[in-house]
């Protein structure tokens, strides 16, 4: 009942040509967090891990390695991710976007030396945004309840399924050796290092960091699903 009223309000505001931010601003706090006590526990654990281990490693990474090296590492993982982004765009029925993603992989893997240089971005082939959680959302799945995963951080019921699907389809998952673990760890550190600035910004601006992070995550994911829907409709 409440959900249908809320979607009616959102639809009405949307038809009036209003912005999404306006629709969100007028609806009640958009969170569904029945596991809040458990989530807060994992959030605190992640914060502690961040402070004692991950942030220092990320900071060392950022200071020790020159920018081209850091960018190279980010690009190699980004190139792998483009394969998954393209697959998800296909699943969402976004053929043209998928073409862009796969062209990026082709160009970056060859001209870009195994993905080290993102040549495609300079050729007007922009990196897309896509993951299996978004695909489920485009297909109509609601985010469900909010979840904080150990190490991985904010997620939702839907996005956790999406993440599991991503892990299951990653070849590294099936290579049980030091190399694959090393590669997964390396990607983890690289992503952390890339987000140090954002994490600092949340630190300075939030009163209740848990609630703030939860809200940022849910709003961001809703926007990603919305843009996926729009792209799928306009294909």
């Amino acid at each position: 009942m409440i959900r249908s009223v809320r979607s009616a309000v959102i639809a009405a505001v949307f038809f009036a040509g209003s912005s999404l931010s306006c629709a969100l601003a007028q609806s009640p706090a958009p969170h569904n967090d029945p596991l809040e006590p458990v989530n807060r526990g994992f959030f605190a654990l992640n914060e502690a891990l961040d402070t004692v281990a991950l942030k220092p490693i990320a900071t060392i990474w950022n200071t020790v390695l020159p920018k081209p090296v850091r960018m190279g590492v980010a690009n190699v993982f980004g190139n792998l991710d483009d394969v998954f982004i393209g697959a998800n765009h296909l699943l969402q029925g976004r053929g043209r976007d998928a073409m862009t993603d796969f062209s990026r992989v082709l160009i970056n893997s060859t001209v870009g030396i195994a993905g080290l240089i993102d040549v495609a971005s300079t050729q007007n082939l922009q990196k897309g945004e896509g993951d299996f959680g978004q695909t489920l959302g485009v297909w109509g799945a609601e985010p469900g309840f909010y979840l904080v995963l150990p190490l991985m951080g904010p997620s939702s019921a839907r996005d956790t399924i999406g993440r599991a699907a991503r892990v299951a389809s990653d070849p590294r998952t099936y290579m049980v050796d030091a190399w694959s673990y090393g590669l997964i760890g390396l990607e983890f550190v690289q992503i952390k290092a890339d987000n140090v600035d954002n994490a600092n910004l949340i630190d300075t601006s939030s009163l209740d960091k848990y609630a703030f992070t939860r809200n940022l995550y849910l709003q961001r994911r809703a926007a990603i699903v919305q843009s996926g829907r729009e792209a799928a409709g306009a294909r």
Partner: protein
Amino acid sequence: MLRFVVSLCLAVLCMAPARAQNAGAEDLVRRMAAEVTAQVRKNPELVNSPAQLAALVEQRLAPRFDFNRVTQMAMGRNWPRASGGEQGQVVAEFSKLLVRTYSNALASLRDLDVQVRDSRSNSGSDVTVRTQMIGRAKPVAIDYTLSSASGGWRVYDVTVEGVSLITAYRDEFNSIVGSSGVPGLIAALKQKNAK
């Protein structure tokens, strides 16, 4: 046929002021971005001095923000429950926090450019101006929502990649007011600002 012509004329009449209105809002956003970017680039060591950055935001951006409205919307249903004095205190402390948040974000303007893409009218007298920051691998979409309620355009919400600032704070404010009332919120804001 006549009906078609009349409705066309009406449509054009309705659109003309709307477009003029949007142009004012777009201009303001463009001017704010240009001014601040110029300051940050002219004075690169500014980035390392939080006090100077805050002064810059205070001087150039704060007058164009409707902090009263920002606070009112962030507090949502708790706004009318606060006394006049409390409302004033929340506005004062929250604007301090926002100025600081902004100062931190400004450093990135050293190597990024702000481009105004377009704008659209919302319900009432509000306009959303869509911009993007370019200079990194992927452009960042930033939307400014402005209103011209009390003479002159003023910004009251900023949406970064689909994340609205007001909505982000509403959740937090709600949970703090829920557990420790409006005085608790004022205390939390003060404590944060003192750090």
